[in-house]
């Protein structure tokens, strides 16, 4: 379980998170939604240990994020892999650090995602880069999987492949996935829980199905309403 207790984080004068309390349930897919600048990427970076909170604490199973990196697979929005590596070299590099690397799954996913081991990361299309990042994350049987805008700027067919890969390999009950995106419609059918962030604050948190039942609206509409009231 990942917990944020009174977490605040600012970058210069920009307040990214303003004292938030969030619990990301174990074994579920959580949608971290909100407009750009809401604090979603910052939240994921705090979990991965790339940032430290100014106030409050972030705990992963009761431990500091810096001690939990081995259990976390992180897919950032930016291209963070070495452009001179090809896919095989990148896989070899990443797998050297994690005991949960599944070589068999890696070889199954390659053709499924239409990727070739010889492809050089600096020379492939945006969609192929997105799939490569996903490949390297999901070839690990990690406890936590954090995806920051995994579908943005990706063509429809590639999106389908990405969503299919996520569903196929999701170990429900054991693995926790957090998908951060501003395009809720894309992943509505996929999430168990939702956390809506707006300008560093939590607008809404809860079980997706329960919210649908209570409000008779899709998550997209629920968010629109939540933000209308906020403004």
């Amino acid at each position, binding site marked *: 379980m990942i917990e944020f207790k009174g977490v605040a984080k600012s970058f*210069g004068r920009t307040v990214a998170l303003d004292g938030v309390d969030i619990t990301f349930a174990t074994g579920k897919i959580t949608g971290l939604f909100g407009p750009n600048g809401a604090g979603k990427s910052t939240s994921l*970076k705090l979990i*991965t*240990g*790339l*940032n*430290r909170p100014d106030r409050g604490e972030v705990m992963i199973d009761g431990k500091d994020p810096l001690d939990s*990196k*081995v259990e*976390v697979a*992180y897919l*950032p929005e*930016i*291209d*963070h*892999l*070495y*452009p*001179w590596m090809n896919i095989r070299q990148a896989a*070899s*590099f990443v*797998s*050297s*650090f*994690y*005991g949960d690397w599944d070589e068999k799954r890696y070889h199954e996913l390659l053709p499924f995602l239409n990727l070739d081991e010889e492809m050089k990361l600096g020379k492939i299309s945006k969609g192929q880069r997105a799939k490569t990042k996903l490949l390297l994350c999901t070839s690990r049987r990690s406890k936590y999987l954090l995806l920051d805008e995994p579908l943005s700027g990706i063509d429809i067919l590639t999106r389908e492949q990405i969503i299919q890969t996520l569903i196929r390999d999701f170990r429900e009950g054991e693995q926790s996935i957090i998908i951060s995106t501003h395009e809720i419609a894309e992943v509505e059918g996929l999430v168990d829980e939702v956390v809506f962030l707006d300008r560093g604050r939590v607008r809404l948190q809860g079980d997706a199905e329960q919210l649908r039942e209570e409000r008779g609206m899709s998550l997209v509409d629920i968010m629109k309403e939540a933000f209308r009231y906020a403004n």
Partner: protein
Amino acid sequence: MPTSNWQRFSALYGKEMRELRPEIIIVVAMAVLICLTMYAKSGTDARDLLIVPIFLLMGLAGFLPFVASFKLLGREWSTNTIYLIMSLPVRGGMILGTKLAALISQYLLGTLVVIAAALFWVHPHLPEIVNSLNAMTGSQTKLVQFIPGIAMAYLLSLTWLFYLISVSFLSQLIGKLFTRFNGVITLIVFLATLAFAGWLMDLSRSFCQFSSSFNILGPGLQSSLQQAMVFMGVNSAIYFVVAALIMVVSILVYRYRIEL
């Protein structure tokens, strides 16, 4: 089951060496080029023609790793691969340590290739060189006796490189703590650290001089060669210790202060 530290070290070290590949190739290629040129122009004049390019190449081989230290660390930020590095389950010590190891490897490879190239051509004339050196200094030293001195000089150059690289890492990391003017701040910290460390080293040298066990101006030592050996040895140790301290500070900065 987590992967072994050795596996992680190899992966990082291999990656760093691959980044340094162009620089290493340049030095090796130029050494080969010089050798080939000498071969093409072989004759008694070859030895004299060799000296200048070999010296220049030696300087390059020695200087490139220091320059590369800025590329190895700085590039992680400019290509965003720092996101990958910082999310890996490894300590800052291993991240900076593998970069240091790769840079030292680059230095060793480059300088030893150049030395090998030089020796290959010069070795028939070595007795001649030794004799003229002896004639100049009025001593009777044999070739073999020069070797420890040369080895010690090389060791000194290695500790000097370690020192420069540690200052480079520290100043770059501190520069990264600031969102603006980080180039200027890196430069300032670099110069300031050199100045501070220089002062620290002068302090420790004077301490050694006044310490009875290290009295290098004492009457006990026989030749200038032995004096030089002790002098180089003490300096190597001092550079090593100061460099190690600066590395520790760098590691602490990386662990506790660096963010994305």
